[in-house]
Protein backbone atom coordinates (compact mmCIF):
# COMPACT_ATOMS: atom_id res chain seq x y z
CA UNK A 1 0.00 0.00 0.00
CA UNK A 2 1.21 3.45 -0.77
CA UNK A 3 2.24 5.39 2.26
CA UNK A 4 1.61 8.63 0.48
CA UNK A 5 -1.37 10.37 -0.97
CA UNK A 6 -1.84 9.73 -4.62
CA UNK A 7 -1.45 13.37 -5.46
CA UNK A 8 0.75 14.28 -2.52
CA UNK A 9 -1.62 17.03 -1.50
CA UNK A 10 -2.99 15.27 1.54
CA UNK A 11 -6.53 16.07 0.51
CA UNK A 12 -7.74 12.65 -0.52
CA UNK A 13 -11.40 11.85 0.05
CA UNK A 14 -10.92 9.10 2.60
CA UNK A 15 -9.18 11.31 5.07
CA UNK A 16 -11.55 14.17 4.51
CA UNK A 17 -14.39 11.84 5.35
CA UNK A 18 -12.62 10.61 8.46
CA UNK A 19 -11.89 14.13 9.57
CA UNK A 20 -15.23 15.65 8.89
CA UNK A 21 -16.85 14.24 11.98
CA UNK A 22 -13.89 15.21 14.10
CA UNK A 23 -13.94 18.75 12.88
CA UNK A 24 -17.56 19.14 13.78
CA UNK A 25 -17.24 19.15 17.55
CA UNK A 26 -13.97 20.85 18.07
CA UNK A 27 -14.92 24.48 17.85
CA UNK A 28 -11.68 26.34 17.40
CA UNK A 29 -9.43 23.32 17.72
CA UNK A 30 -6.74 22.69 15.18
CA UNK A 31 -7.12 19.55 13.11
CA UNK A 32 -3.99 17.58 12.49
CA UNK A 33 -3.64 14.78 10.07
CA UNK A 34 -0.81 12.40 9.34
CA UNK A 35 -0.20 10.91 5.91
CA UNK A 36 2.76 8.65 5.34
CA UNK A 37 4.21 9.80 8.61
CA UNK A 38 3.99 13.46 7.73
CA UNK A 39 1.73 15.43 10.04
CA UNK A 40 0.40 18.81 9.06
CA UNK A 41 -2.37 21.11 10.16
CA UNK A 42 -5.52 21.20 8.09
CA UNK A 43 -6.51 24.44 9.74
CA UNK A 44 -8.72 25.61 12.52
CA UNK A 45 -12.11 24.04 12.59
CA UNK A 46 -15.43 25.77 12.91
CA UNK A 47 -18.80 24.70 14.17
CA UNK A 48 -20.81 22.41 11.96
CA UNK A 49 -23.28 19.59 11.85
CA UNK A 50 -21.92 16.40 13.33
CA UNK A 51 -21.26 13.82 10.67
CA UNK A 52 -20.76 10.10 11.05
CA UNK A 53 -17.23 8.78 11.21
CA UNK A 54 -16.10 6.31 8.58
CA UNK A 55 -17.65 3.02 9.67
CA UNK A 56 -14.31 1.28 9.98
CA UNK A 57 -12.50 4.13 11.69
CA UNK A 58 -11.00 3.53 15.10
CA UNK A 59 -11.26 6.61 17.25
CA UNK A 60 -9.67 7.08 20.63
CA UNK A 61 -8.76 9.98 22.88
CA UNK A 62 -5.43 10.84 24.48
CA UNK A 63 -5.28 12.64 27.80
CA UNK A 64 -2.10 13.27 29.76
CA UNK A 65 -0.43 14.68 32.84
CA UNK A 66 -3.42 14.96 35.16
CA UNK A 67 -1.12 15.32 38.22
CA UNK A 68 -3.83 14.39 40.71
CA UNK A 69 -2.61 15.78 44.05
CA UNK A 70 -1.20 19.02 42.59
CA UNK A 71 -2.42 22.02 44.59
CA UNK A 72 -0.57 25.11 43.47
CA UNK A 73 -1.53 28.46 41.94
CA UNK A 74 -0.72 27.21 38.43
CA UNK A 75 -3.99 25.25 38.69
CA UNK A 76 -5.86 25.16 42.01
CA UNK A 77 -8.51 22.80 40.60
CA UNK A 78 -6.90 20.02 38.61
CA UNK A 79 -9.77 17.67 39.47
CA UNK A 80 -12.15 20.19 37.91
CA UNK A 81 -9.99 20.34 34.78
CA UNK A 82 -10.02 16.56 34.47
CA UNK A 83 -13.77 16.37 35.02
CA UNK A 84 -14.31 19.04 32.39
CA UNK A 85 -12.29 17.00 29.90
CA UNK A 86 -14.20 13.85 30.83
CA UNK A 87 -17.50 15.64 30.22
CA UNK A 88 -16.32 16.70 26.76
CA UNK A 89 -15.13 13.20 25.93
CA UNK A 90 -18.41 11.69 27.14
CA UNK A 91 -20.29 14.21 24.97
CA UNK A 92 -18.52 13.25 21.74
CA UNK A 93 -21.07 12.41 19.05
CA UNK A 94 -19.41 9.05 18.55
CA UNK A 95 -17.94 7.47 21.62
CA UNK A 96 -14.23 6.77 21.31
CA UNK A 97 -13.14 3.14 21.55
CA UNK A 98 -11.03 3.92 24.59
CA UNK A 99 -8.95 6.60 26.27
CA UNK A 100 -5.18 6.55 26.69
CA UNK A 101 -3.46 8.46 29.48
CA UNK A 102 0.22 9.12 28.75
CA UNK A 103 1.44 9.42 32.30
CA UNK A 104 1.82 11.57 35.38
CA UNK A 105 -1.55 10.34 36.53
CA UNK A 106 -0.55 11.43 40.04
CA UNK A 107 1.65 14.25 41.30
CA UNK A 108 3.47 12.56 44.17
CA UNK A 109 2.85 8.81 43.62
CA UNK A 110 0.67 8.69 46.73
CA UNK A 111 -1.83 5.82 46.99
CA UNK A 112 -4.66 8.26 47.61
CA UNK A 113 -3.73 10.12 44.42
CA UNK A 114 -3.75 6.94 42.36
CA UNK A 115 -7.02 5.92 43.99
CA UNK A 116 -8.69 9.23 43.31
CA UNK A 117 -7.43 9.24 39.73
CA UNK A 118 -8.74 5.75 39.07
CA UNK A 119 -12.08 6.67 40.58
CA UNK A 120 -12.46 9.82 38.46
CA UNK A 121 -11.29 8.09 35.28
CA UNK A 122 -14.09 5.57 35.77
CA UNK A 123 -16.46 8.43 34.95
CA UNK A 124 -15.30 8.11 31.35
CA UNK A 125 -17.95 6.28 29.38
CA UNK A 126 -15.48 4.12 27.47
CA UNK A 127 -14.59 0.45 27.71
CA UNK A 128 -11.06 0.98 28.89
CA UNK A 129 -8.50 3.54 29.94
CA UNK A 130 -4.94 2.57 29.08
CA UNK A 131 -2.26 4.34 31.08
CA UNK A 132 1.52 4.48 31.11
CA UNK A 133 3.49 5.75 34.11
CA UNK A 134 5.13 9.16 34.32
CA UNK A 135 8.04 10.05 36.56
CA UNK A 136 5.57 11.56 39.05
CA UNK A 137 3.97 8.10 39.32
CA UNK A 138 7.21 6.35 40.30
CA UNK A 139 8.69 8.62 42.94
CA UNK A 140 8.90 6.55 46.11
CA UNK A 141 8.88 2.89 45.17
CA UNK A 142 9.51 2.75 41.47
CA UNK A 143 6.53 1.53 39.54
CA UNK A 144 5.16 -0.66 42.35
CA UNK A 145 2.71 1.85 43.80
CA UNK A 146 1.39 2.77 40.37
CA UNK A 147 0.86 -0.88 39.40
CA UNK A 148 -1.38 -1.45 42.41
CA UNK A 149 -3.91 0.71 40.58
CA UNK A 150 -2.96 0.48 36.90
CA UNK A 151 -1.61 -2.99 36.15
CA UNK A 152 -3.46 -3.39 32.87
CA UNK A 153 -2.56 -6.92 31.90
CA UNK A 154 -1.68 -8.29 35.33
CA UNK A 155 1.90 -8.99 34.31
CA UNK A 156 3.36 -6.74 36.98
CA UNK A 157 5.07 -4.61 34.36
CA UNK A 158 4.22 -1.10 33.32
CA UNK A 159 4.64 -2.04 29.65
CA UNK A 160 2.14 -3.94 27.56
CA UNK A 161 0.66 -4.23 24.10
CA UNK A 162 -2.77 -4.85 22.61
CA UNK A 163 -4.44 -4.94 19.23
CA UNK A 164 -7.59 -3.06 18.43
CA UNK A 165 -9.20 -1.89 15.20
CA UNK A 166 -6.34 -3.24 13.11
CA UNK A 167 -3.81 -1.21 15.05
CA UNK A 168 -1.07 -2.54 17.29
CA UNK A 169 -0.73 -0.48 20.47
CA UNK A 170 2.38 -0.57 22.66
CA UNK A 171 2.47 1.03 26.13
CA UNK A 172 5.94 1.76 27.51
CA UNK A 173 7.55 2.77 30.78
CA UNK A 174 10.37 5.25 30.06
CA UNK A 175 10.60 6.98 33.43
CA UNK A 176 13.05 4.67 35.23
CA UNK A 177 16.35 2.98 34.40
CA UNK A 178 18.22 6.26 34.60
CA UNK A 179 21.80 6.74 35.61
CA UNK A 180 22.83 9.76 37.65
CA UNK A 181 23.02 12.87 35.57
CA UNK A 182 21.32 11.36 32.54
CA UNK A 183 17.92 10.98 30.97
CA UNK A 184 15.53 8.22 32.02
CA UNK A 185 15.47 5.18 29.77
CA UNK A 186 13.47 2.17 28.65
CA UNK A 187 16.14 -0.29 29.77
CA UNK A 188 17.38 -3.52 28.23
CA UNK A 189 14.62 -5.76 29.61
CA UNK A 190 11.87 -3.62 28.15
CA UNK A 191 13.66 -3.21 24.80
CA UNK A 192 14.01 -7.00 24.60
CA UNK A 193 10.30 -7.38 25.31
CA UNK A 194 9.50 -4.74 22.69
CA UNK A 195 11.57 -6.57 20.08
CA UNK A 196 9.75 -9.84 20.77
CA UNK A 197 6.39 -8.13 20.82
CA UNK A 198 6.90 -6.34 17.49
CA UNK A 199 8.32 -9.45 15.82
CA UNK A 200 4.82 -10.91 15.54
CA UNK A 201 3.33 -7.77 13.97
CA UNK A 202 3.33 -7.34 10.19
CA UNK A 203 5.08 -4.24 8.93
CA UNK A 204 1.86 -3.09 7.24
CA UNK A 205 0.06 -2.87 10.59
CA UNK A 206 -0.18 0.66 11.95
CA UNK A 207 1.62 0.90 15.29
CA UNK A 208 0.77 3.40 18.01
CA UNK A 209 3.28 3.74 20.85
CA UNK A 210 2.37 5.28 24.20
CA UNK A 211 5.11 6.59 26.46
CA UNK A 212 5.31 9.39 28.98
CA UNK A 213 8.60 11.15 28.26
CA UNK A 214 9.13 12.03 24.60
CA UNK A 215 10.94 9.33 22.66
CA UNK A 216 13.09 11.96 21.06
CA UNK A 217 15.36 14.43 22.77
CA UNK A 218 13.55 17.75 22.91
CA UNK A 219 15.65 19.48 25.57
CA UNK A 220 18.24 17.47 27.40
CA UNK A 221 19.00 20.02 30.17
CA UNK A 222 15.42 19.53 31.39
CA UNK A 223 15.44 15.77 30.97
CA UNK A 224 13.03 15.99 28.04
CA UNK A 225 14.16 12.89 26.22
CA UNK A 226 14.71 9.14 26.56
CA UNK A 227 18.33 7.96 26.81
CA UNK A 228 17.87 4.80 24.73
CA UNK A 229 15.13 6.01 22.39
CA UNK A 230 17.34 5.33 19.35
CA UNK A 231 17.09 1.60 20.07
CA UNK A 232 13.31 1.82 20.25
CA UNK A 233 13.21 3.81 17.01
CA UNK A 234 15.29 1.12 15.31
CA UNK A 235 12.69 -1.48 16.30
CA UNK A 236 9.87 0.72 14.94
CA UNK A 237 11.52 1.78 11.69
CA UNK A 238 10.43 -1.30 9.64
CA UNK A 239 6.77 -0.41 10.11
CA UNK A 240 4.94 1.60 7.50
CA UNK A 241 3.01 3.75 9.95
CA UNK A 242 4.17 4.50 13.47
CA UNK A 243 2.64 7.12 15.72
CA UNK A 244 4.28 7.85 19.07
CA UNK A 245 2.13 9.63 21.64
CA UNK A 246 3.93 11.23 24.57
CA UNK A 247 3.12 13.59 27.44
CA UNK A 248 5.51 15.01 30.05
CA UNK A 249 6.19 18.43 28.53
CA UNK A 250 2.62 19.79 28.84
CA UNK A 251 2.55 21.26 25.35
CA UNK A 252 2.11 20.12 21.76
CA UNK A 253 5.27 19.40 19.81
CA UNK A 254 5.80 17.11 16.86
CA UNK A 255 8.62 15.47 15.03
CA UNK A 256 8.77 13.14 12.05
CA UNK A 257 11.44 10.54 11.36
CA UNK A 258 10.64 8.65 8.18
CA UNK A 259 7.41 6.78 8.84
CA UNK A 260 7.53 7.58 12.55
CA UNK A 261 5.53 10.59 13.72
CA UNK A 262 6.06 11.67 17.31
CA UNK A 263 3.63 13.89 19.15
CA UNK A 264 3.50 15.32 22.65
CA UNK A 265 0.19 16.32 24.21
CA UNK A 266 -1.16 19.08 26.38
CA UNK A 267 -1.58 18.45 30.09
CA UNK A 268 -4.84 18.53 32.01
CA UNK A 269 -3.10 20.07 35.03
CA UNK A 270 -0.80 23.03 34.32
CA UNK A 271 1.39 24.47 31.55
CA UNK A 272 5.17 24.15 31.40
CA UNK A 273 7.52 26.62 29.73
CA UNK A 274 8.75 26.32 26.18
CA UNK A 275 12.04 24.39 26.12
CA UNK A 276 14.96 26.74 26.22
CA UNK A 277 12.71 29.74 26.75
CA UNK A 278 14.80 32.79 27.56
CA UNK A 279 14.90 33.57 31.25
CA UNK A 280 13.37 30.27 32.34
CA UNK A 281 16.01 27.89 33.48
CA UNK A 282 13.83 25.09 34.77
CA UNK A 283 10.70 23.17 33.75
CA UNK A 284 8.47 24.30 36.64
CA UNK A 285 4.71 24.99 36.52
CA UNK A 286 3.78 28.22 34.77
CA UNK A 287 1.04 30.34 36.35
CA UNK A 288 -0.90 32.20 33.68
CA UNK A 289 -3.53 34.96 34.07
CA UNK A 290 -7.05 33.89 34.95
CA UNK A 291 -8.97 32.85 31.87
CA UNK A 292 -5.86 31.74 30.01
CA UNK A 293 -5.35 28.37 31.69
CA UNK A 294 -8.07 26.53 29.78
CA UNK A 295 -6.39 27.39 26.50
CA UNK A 296 -3.22 25.65 27.59
CA UNK A 297 -4.80 22.44 28.85
CA UNK A 298 -6.59 19.95 26.69
CA UNK A 299 -7.24 16.56 25.16
CA UNK A 300 -6.47 14.93 21.85
CA UNK A 301 -8.72 12.79 19.69
CA UNK A 302 -7.24 10.39 17.18
CA UNK A 303 -8.88 8.55 14.36
CA UNK A 304 -7.49 5.76 12.24
CA UNK A 305 -9.22 4.34 9.19
CA UNK A 306 -8.72 0.61 8.75
CA UNK A 307 -6.51 -0.27 5.83
CA UNK A 308 -5.05 3.20 5.77
CA UNK A 309 -1.78 4.57 7.00
CA UNK A 310 -3.40 7.82 7.82
CA UNK A 311 -4.06 9.05 11.28
CA UNK A 312 -6.00 12.14 12.17
CA UNK A 313 -5.23 14.08 15.32
CA UNK A 314 -7.20 16.86 16.89
CA UNK A 315 -5.78 18.77 19.85
CA UNK A 316 -8.64 20.31 21.76
CA UNK A 317 -8.05 22.98 24.42
CA UNK A 318 -10.34 22.85 27.44
CA UNK A 319 -11.32 26.44 26.68
CA UNK A 320 -11.09 28.15 23.34
Amino acid sequence: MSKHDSDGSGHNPARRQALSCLASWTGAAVVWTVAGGVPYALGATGSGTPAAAAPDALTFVQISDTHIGFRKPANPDIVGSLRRAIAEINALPQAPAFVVHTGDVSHLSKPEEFGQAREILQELRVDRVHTVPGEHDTIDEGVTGYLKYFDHDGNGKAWYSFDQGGVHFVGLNNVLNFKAGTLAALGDEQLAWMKTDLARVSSSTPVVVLGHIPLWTIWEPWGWGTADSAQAMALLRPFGSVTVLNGHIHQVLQKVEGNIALHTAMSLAYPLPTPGEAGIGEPGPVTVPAGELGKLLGTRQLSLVRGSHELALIDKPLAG
Partner: protein
Amino acid sequence: MNYAVTRNAGHRFRARALLALAFCAAFATPAFFATAAGPASTVEVKIAKFVFEPKEITIAPGTRVVWTNGDETPHTVTSNDKSFASKGLDTDDKFEHVFSKEGDFGYICTVHPFMTGVVHVRK
Protein backbone atom coordinates in the same frame (compact mmCIF):
# COMPACT_ATOMS: atom_id res chain seq x y z
CA MET B 1 22.72 6.63 60.36
CA ASN B 2 19.75 8.80 60.96
CA TYR B 3 17.44 10.38 58.47
CA ALA B 4 13.85 11.43 58.25
CA VAL B 5 11.49 13.53 56.23
CA THR B 6 10.02 16.38 58.19
CA ARG B 7 7.47 18.90 57.04
CA ASN B 8 8.24 22.44 58.14
CA ALA B 9 9.80 21.01 61.25
CA GLY B 10 12.38 22.78 63.36
CA HIS B 11 15.85 21.36 63.33
CA ARG B 12 16.65 18.79 65.91
CA PHE B 13 20.09 19.01 67.32
CA ARG B 14 21.80 16.12 68.95
CA ALA B 15 25.02 15.87 70.82
CA ARG B 16 27.68 13.93 69.05
CA ALA B 17 30.92 12.71 70.50
CA LEU B 18 33.49 13.93 68.07
CA LEU B 19 37.08 14.95 68.14
CA ALA B 20 37.52 18.65 67.71
CA LEU B 21 38.93 18.86 64.27
CA ALA B 22 38.89 21.37 61.56
CA PHE B 23 37.92 19.58 58.39
CA CYS B 24 38.84 19.69 54.82
CA ALA B 25 39.17 23.13 53.40
CA ALA B 26 39.66 21.96 49.85
CA PHE B 27 36.79 24.11 48.65
CA ALA B 28 37.50 26.96 51.02
CA THR B 29 34.23 26.33 52.83
CA PRO B 30 33.66 28.03 56.18
CA ALA B 31 35.16 25.92 58.91
CA PHE B 32 32.69 23.99 61.02
CA PHE B 33 33.73 22.69 64.40
CA ALA B 34 32.09 19.88 66.27
CA THR B 35 33.19 19.62 69.87
CA ALA B 36 32.93 16.66 72.17
CA ALA B 37 29.98 18.12 74.04
CA GLY B 38 28.49 20.44 71.45
CA PRO B 39 25.66 19.87 69.03
CA ALA B 40 26.31 18.48 65.58
CA SER B 41 26.66 21.09 62.89
CA THR B 42 23.86 21.50 60.45
CA VAL B 43 24.34 22.44 56.82
CA GLU B 44 21.44 23.54 54.68
CA VAL B 45 21.01 22.66 51.02
CA LYS B 46 18.24 24.36 49.12
CA ILE B 47 16.47 22.83 46.17
CA ALA B 48 15.41 25.68 43.91
CA LYS B 49 14.73 25.86 40.20
CA PHE B 50 15.70 22.21 39.76
CA VAL B 51 19.16 22.73 41.26
CA PHE B 52 20.73 21.58 44.54
CA GLU B 53 22.28 24.72 46.04
CA PRO B 54 25.08 24.41 46.92
CA LYS B 55 25.56 21.53 44.56
CA GLU B 56 28.73 20.43 46.32
CA ILE B 57 29.45 20.65 50.05
CA THR B 58 32.28 19.49 52.29
CA ILE B 59 31.44 18.65 55.91
CA ALA B 60 32.91 16.94 58.96
CA PRO B 61 31.67 13.53 60.11
CA GLY B 62 28.62 13.89 62.31
CA THR B 63 27.28 16.87 60.40
CA ARG B 64 23.58 16.96 59.68
CA VAL B 65 22.56 18.05 56.19
CA VAL B 66 19.04 19.37 55.69
CA TRP B 67 17.59 19.69 52.20
CA THR B 68 14.50 21.86 51.64
CA ASN B 69 12.48 21.74 48.43
CA GLY B 70 11.62 25.28 47.38
CA ASP B 71 10.11 24.26 44.05
CA GLU B 72 6.47 23.65 43.20
CA THR B 73 7.64 20.42 41.59
CA PRO B 74 8.45 17.40 43.77
CA HIS B 75 12.04 16.27 44.06
CA THR B 76 13.94 13.56 45.88
CA VAL B 77 17.37 13.36 47.50
CA THR B 78 18.65 9.90 46.64
CA SER B 79 22.26 8.79 47.09
CA ASN B 80 23.96 6.87 44.33
CA ASP B 81 25.10 4.20 46.82
CA LYS B 82 21.58 3.90 48.34
CA SER B 83 22.90 4.90 51.78
CA PHE B 84 20.21 7.58 52.05
CA ALA B 85 17.04 8.35 50.15
CA SER B 86 14.19 10.73 50.76
CA LYS B 87 10.59 10.21 49.89
CA GLY B 88 9.14 12.56 47.31
CA LEU B 89 9.52 16.06 48.73
CA ASP B 90 6.64 18.40 48.00
CA THR B 91 7.03 22.17 48.29
CA ASP B 92 8.73 23.14 51.59
CA ASP B 93 9.23 19.52 52.63
CA LYS B 94 12.56 18.80 54.28
CA PHE B 95 14.86 15.80 54.34
CA GLU B 96 17.79 15.38 56.67
CA HIS B 97 20.64 12.98 56.98
CA VAL B 98 23.55 12.79 59.41
CA PHE B 99 26.80 11.79 57.73
CA SER B 100 28.78 9.70 60.20
CA LYS B 101 31.36 8.21 57.85
CA GLU B 102 33.97 9.83 55.69
CA GLY B 103 33.55 9.59 51.98
CA ASP B 104 32.10 11.19 48.88
CA PHE B 105 28.34 10.80 48.58
CA GLY B 106 26.91 11.68 45.21
CA TYR B 107 23.16 12.00 45.01
CA ILE B 108 20.44 12.82 42.50
CA CYS B 109 16.75 13.62 42.30
CA THR B 110 15.18 10.44 40.96
CA VAL B 111 12.30 12.43 39.44
CA HIS B 112 14.81 14.57 37.54
CA PRO B 113 18.04 12.55 37.32
CA PHE B 114 19.80 15.45 35.62
CA MET B 115 19.80 17.12 39.07
CA THR B 116 22.97 16.03 40.85
CA GLY B 117 24.81 16.95 44.04
CA VAL B 118 27.65 15.63 46.16
CA VAL B 119 28.52 15.63 49.86
CA HIS B 120 32.20 15.26 50.75
CA VAL B 121 32.67 14.06 54.34
CA ARG B 122 36.19 14.72 55.62
CA LYS B 123 37.80 14.71 59.06
